[in-house]
């Protein structure tokens, strides 16, 4: 009887926690912070291992610096529009938008406009990473040639 009661008529136990809508943006921001921290760690590790004397690793360090900047850009943008919601964009026409700052500050609006151009940071970051890998490939090719040359 007890078993059937427990099975067919269970009471609310609240075993699964309910998540608020703001949790998504906080998780995203933490993700950006984590990415930023990992890039900082990469820069210090490369320096600590004295790899920055090699061009390839130095370029990868530059890449990490750009990714840090990009993360800061993204965190700030998300902070303004998603978290504290002090600024928003309204589409006026196909070629024009209105950046609306809650306090009407044009400085904040311009800052937000600039922050929206984040590809200007992440694309160079990836380019530096690519260049770094290219240099490491060249260096490795030279090592291989040296080994094969008697």
């Amino acid at each position, binding site marked *: 009887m007890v078993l059937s009661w427990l099975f067919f008529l269970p009471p609310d136990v609240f075993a699964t926690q309910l998540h608020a809508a703001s949790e998504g943006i906080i*998780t995203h921001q933490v993700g950006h912070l984590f990415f930023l921290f990992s890039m900082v*760690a990469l820069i210090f590790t490369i320096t600590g291992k004295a790899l920055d004397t090699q061009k390839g690793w130095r370029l990868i360090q530059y890449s990490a610096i750009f990714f840090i900047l990009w993360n800061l850009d993204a965190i700030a943008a998300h902070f303004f529009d998603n978290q504290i919601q002090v600024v928003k964009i309204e589409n006026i026409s*196909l070629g024009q*938008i209105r950046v609306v700052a809650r306090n009407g500050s044009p400085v904040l609006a*311009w800052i937000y406009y600039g922050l929206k151009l984040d590809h*200007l940071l992440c694309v160079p970051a990836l380019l530096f990473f690519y260049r770094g890998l290219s240099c490491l490939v060249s260096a490795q*090719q030279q090592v291989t040639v040296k080994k094969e040359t008697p």
Partner: protein
Amino acid sequence: MIVSFIPILVVDVVGSVAMVVIALLCLNKARRLRGMDPANAVFLYLLWISTGFTIFAVSRSFGHILRQFLILTSNAETWHTLAPYSGSVNTVSFMLVGLITLFFKQSWHINEKILSSRKRLEETHIKLVDLNQTLEQKVVARTEMLTSSEHKARRIFEQSLDTIVVTDEGFRVSEINQAGVALTGYKKGEMLEKKMGLKDFMAKASEWERIRGLLEVDEYILNEETDFALPNFSQVRVLITGGVDYGAFGCGKTFHFIIKNINDKKQMEQQIAQADKLAALGELSAGVAHEINNPLGIILGYTQLMLKEASGFEEDLKTIEKHVQNCRTVVSDLLSFSRKGSPEKRRLDVARVIDNVIKFLSNHTDFRKVEIGRGPLPMLPLMVYGNEQELAQVIINLIINACHAVGKNGRIEIETGETKDRQVLITVKDNGTGIRKRHFSRLFDPFFTTKPVGQGTGLGLSVGYGIIRRHGGDITARNREKKGAAFTISLPSAPAEETR
């Protein structure tokens, strides 16, 4: 604030496409890098991080492009529905990149360990290769030394003038050098085929038993003298040294012998001993003859005086005179044997001396049934410096002895020649009974004779020996290979200036 949307749109769309393209290029580079050194953990790490960037770029770019497309096509509501999903994927992707990045240090340590292990492995490999090469060089050097040593040992074995024999445990010949083949008179193949042993070379079985006994007790023998019997029935005196070899590397027990031919040395020693003995006898004979000669002269003088007067003892006195004369002949011979110098010497043609002797003896009745021959005559006359009567006396003595040895219908041959060291040889050969071995050492002793009592004084050869020695020469005797004896006189050839 109203601003142009174009910059944001262009940067967003172009940047998104660029992100995807560059991320894929990064992935390609990372794969190449990894392909160059698959064991490198850092390269593996870069491949992972490139993969993470690619996922990140694709998810983010797809979201951005989709957003711009939906907003521009007035489907903002649809974008609001999809936005959380796109954002979540984007969040996961760059968190993944961050996570992978944090593993760089660990990847580096792993790579360092791998590199360190590889380095040690390479060093060990180099050491091993070096050791291997050193080992090969050592093997080559040792092989060369061994070959050189073997070559030396082989040369010593082959070139040795002494016999070197290796036998098995049963003393059967297993190796013998060329000197051994020459000494024993057997061919090597014959010895091996017939499984000949050392005992087969021994002249006396008892000698072999004695030597084998020594070998069994002491396991070596040192300078043991014995006689080898040769296939031509002659004997050779040898000195044997040998010992056991227990071998190595599983080889069986063997015996090694060095056998020295001392026949010539022994003969020379005997000749020297003979010469010394005869010299001593000469001294003794001279003293005795001198002491006896004077009393004999007095006895003979008084006997002859008494014979001049009639006394009734004439017969007795003649007997005394006859025997005293015999005694004086013997004493005279003894003096001839021991005389220090010859009365007169001159250049002599040996052939002429021999011819005169043969001519003189051919009239003697004893030589009428004996054939006296001359060997091949030399192209040039053989000249010696000496006393003709004395040399003729020696040759006559030798021929008389030969005549007695051959008996009736015998043959005596006289040969002459000259050696390279300018020694003129006169050999008197006969086909008689030969000389007994035990008589060799006494042949030239005064009063030694094999003739019946009364038929010889035993002074002929000793007188001849004395004469030849005074002429600076030598006289030797030997048995001929077939039958009979041969006496050889060697005299120094007269100097060339004197022969002109």
